[in-house]
């Protein structure tokens, strides 16, 4: 019998794997620097839950001369690296008083009820659409969904997901630090152990060949309706295969994974939050993925912030504080989140990347799935964009649309433009006006 050997099968010989592939990401970036070309663009969307009272985040002043509101003071040192937008509305359905905003935030489209009375998105979210752009993702992991917290009832589809692969297909954010670590660094071997790298490449390569053949056995007999599911699986296997090329210790200086033992105890919510957000930074620093969403907490957040914010007085969970519209407590919570996000952005700013820093090539969108949480409002959702977008974004500005609100889809199309994608629209056509004026340099 003819024995078919996969291209990475050990039986097929081993000559082509040297140290070169370990340097590939490094070389790519150096080449970019040498040629004076900007590095690849990245997108990070960071959500914090349950909206904000406007007085805690809407700046006072004019476009170029404004003061930071009480809940955003940690962004003060980054004032020249950001744009704050007020008057941005999330699409909502007709007659929808209790906005099912989370499903609409990044899909730009209203959700629809599920059989068990929740609301599910009906379109892919922007990160998933951008994750299909070869010019952005290259051969990295197309998109990553990471979370700080996931504590709600597990089947509450309306409030737990910011990323959607398509209608009724939520993509959960991973909040377990060890699982994020495994996703990102399963290919990482400490520097110096070339034999271990070689062995791992060989073993994984031959296993993946077998898996692909086994998947084909199933696809060949599966009913047509199940083909997309199996194709997605094949895509995942092929990504694992592609990643073998990057296996090893990274040559990128800023790419230093944490020691697995240093990952925090999962019951320590604030430490977990910081660790997970830092792994978003590392995913970018190691060029493992270029499109990442970070959900701080599901909507209707269960987190009891007083446990780690000593200045707070109330033991209520964030969700109830948001219903009370408790400005002083919500300022503390807003500042806590803003502080960590500011650290994250500063971290990107410290990493050289092509011409400039990683922040110059990363569009960071900070937002929430609600406006003023007390009223479940979809209006005036806190929105901040960080990074210069390789000079495309005119930073250091406050764009006030309170008197002439704009749908969030306008922001997403503008974000696509900042990433170099010439989109003409996104989301429901009736929830789109046009790119946000005043964002692009030269506007």
């Amino acid at each position, binding site marked *: 019998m003819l024995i078919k050997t996969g291209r990475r099968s*050990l*039986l097929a010989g081993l000559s082509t794997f040297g140290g070169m592939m370990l340097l590939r990401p490094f070389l790519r970036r150096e080449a970019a620097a040498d040629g004076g070309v900007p590095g690849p663009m990245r997108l990070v969307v960071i959500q914090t839950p349950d909206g904000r009272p406007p007085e805690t985040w809407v700046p006072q002043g004019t476009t170029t001369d404004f003061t930071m509101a009480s809940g955003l003071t940690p962004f003060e040192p980054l004032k020249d690296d950001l744009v704050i937008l007020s008057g941005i509305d999330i699409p909502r359905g007709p*007659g929808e008083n209790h906005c099912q905003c989370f499903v609409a935030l990044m899909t730009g489209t209203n959700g629809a009820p599920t059989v068990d009375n929740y609301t599910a998105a009906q379109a892919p979210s922007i990160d998933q659409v951008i994750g299909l752009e070869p010019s952005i993702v290259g051969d990295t992991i197309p998109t990553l969904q990471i979370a700080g917290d996931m504590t709600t009832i597990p089947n509450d589809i309306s409030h737990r997901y910011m990323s959607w692969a398509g209608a009724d297909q939520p993509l959960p954010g991973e909040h*377990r630090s060890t699982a994020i670590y495994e996703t990102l660094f399963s290919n990482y071997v400490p520097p110096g152990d070339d034999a271990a790298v070689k062995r791992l490449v060989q073993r994984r390569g031959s296993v993946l060949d077998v898996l692909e053949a086994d998947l084909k056995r199933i696809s060949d007999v599966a009913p047509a309706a199940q083909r997309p599911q199996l194709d997605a699986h094949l895509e995942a296997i092929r990504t694992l295969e592609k990643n073998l090329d990057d296996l090893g210790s990274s040559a990128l200086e800023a790419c230093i994974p944490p020691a697995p033992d240093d990952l925090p105890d999962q019951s320590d919510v604030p430490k977990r939050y910081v660790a997970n957000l830092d792994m978003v930074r590392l995913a970018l620093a190691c060029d493992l993925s270029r499109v990442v969403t970070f959900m701080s907490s599901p909507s209707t957040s269960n987190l009891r912030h007083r446990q780690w914010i000593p200045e707070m007085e109330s033991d209520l969970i964030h969700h109830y504080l948001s219903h009370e519209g408790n400005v002083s407590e919500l300022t503390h919570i807003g500042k806590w989140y803003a502080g960590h996000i500011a650290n994250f952005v500063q971290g990107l700013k410290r990493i050289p990347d092509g011409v400039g820093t990683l922040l110059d090539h990363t569009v960071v969108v900070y937002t929430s799935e609600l406006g003023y949480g007390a009223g479940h409002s979809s209006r005036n959702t806190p929105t901040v964009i960080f990074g210069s977008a390789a000079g495309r974004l005119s930073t250091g500005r406050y764009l006030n649309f309170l008197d002439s609100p704009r749908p969030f889809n306008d922001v997403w199309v503008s974000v696509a433009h900042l990433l170099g994608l010439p989109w003409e629209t996104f989301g429901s056509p009736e929830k789109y006006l046009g790119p946000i004026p005043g964002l692009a340099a030269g506007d």
Partner: protein
Amino acid sequence: MSPRRGGYLMPGQMGQRATLRRNSVLRCAALAALLGAGGCYVGLAQGPGEDESDTAAPGSASGDASDPTGEPADDGCGPAVARNVAKISDREYTNSVRALLGDPEFRITVQSPGASPGAFIEDAATQSVNYALAVQYQGTAEAAGAQVEADPSRVGFTCLGAVSVDPCVRAWIQDFAGRAFRQPLDPDQAEAYASLFTAGAVDGIGAGVGLVVEAVLQSPQFLYRRELGESIANDGSTELSATEVAERVAFWLTETIPDPELWELALTGAIREPDVLRAQVQRLQTSAAGRRTLTHAIVRWLHLSGVDQLDKDPELFAGFPGARTALLESAQRTIEDALAGDGDDVGRLLTTNSTYVNDAIAPLFGLEPVGSSSLVPIDLPDGERSGILTHPALLAALAHYDQTSIVARGAMIRQQLLCNELPPPIEIDAEAVGAGMTPREFAEYRLSDPACRGCHQLMEPFGFIFESYDAVGRYQTTMDGQPIDTVGEVTATDFDGSYSSVPELAQALAQSDQVSRCVTQHMLALGLGTKAADTTCAVDELVDQFPEAPELDELIPAIALSAAFRTRGE
């Protein structure tokens, strides 16, 4: 807290504070939009030909219009579900990996995208293997491979003299991978795994075994169930193959791959003989794994899964965090006991006076401490409590953070015990109407507003009867100093009437044919692995077979022998 009551119970916030202090919002059922005012489609699961004028209809998931008689055809029911390939659930994956490794403690943290482990049946159709999940499978498989490399005997590898792929190694691959895949390896596949063994074995025989294990545990053949059928039945449907029958039985009853005895009968084809199948089903369902699986299914059926995570207002009962784990365990053991007895298990579960308490949960039953931190069996006095519906675990699960939920409790009875389907709620602003109302008054509002009434008239009466139990399940006769009205006028059931206590209601439920039918429907759905199938005919057939409420140990083999279970449509 605010005396103002009301607000829609956001489904994700069971056990959370419900008093929305501003802009409280209420959702009503979407009948106005869907069916015209007042037309929530609910009611009795009727036999054929009965007048279903006002609150007509389904009761069953289907409301089957294509089968107006409701009678099984002469030649029995056809298949209920189509040919199918489905990813195994995270529970099934975890149990199966551990079974293959012979290590019940092996650490696994895999979580599929879209997984809902608390759901009665997980919808495999919405789950696919994305990159993040593939990495988790890979990590688990590599950890397993490393353990096996150190000790190949743990996966039944005994070819100690082997230096390369010999007949002994080939036989082991066929045994191990075949059972893992629930399908013997075809020659090409067997050859591919043999090559893999050789590739790994350059580092020693153990490494060869480890590499095969690594591949088997992430193989799509392991990760997907196939229900494609092989031979054609006389009605044109296909009958599941012997290995498919064994696979379905094993995942259904034990949430893991077939054990060696069942697998042997699959390989010989004997499992397709009715007597053999019946005996195997009985063996598995009474095994420890079978008991655990069924108990867990009932926990999910009654919405009890999240009880050990519930958050309750400390002002209401400060000891809740220390009680919730024992509370769930007490409910589980109550269920186990009900299953252990003879006759109608569910009837017993609905009316039993026996349960388990420790010092942490005794106050929730209104009992003095029992002097034990571990659970001890106890018989509750007549009157306040009877059966699982009055267990504080269930009552707390179906309540808000600091108050009861008339809607959640009523909806549970309708949907889980009577198999009525309620349409999704619409949303209306309740700011104006909810203010200052007691829960009962707010419910009365929903019953008076035509936009809400159609559906809420089916839930609220049950919810009223449950008002005797607060948000942590303690018995109460007053609320905010006012006596509680617990009278509920139950309609659109086969036990219509006025009830004022849950024990009284539980007796009626225990004797209801509608409940018995709904239990059968749920058990069949478990067997088929889906709630989406039209099972009207198959349920009718089973109900005919068991005119009295069946013992589950009899019902389950009958399901396994039904055409719905053993055949697949196109």
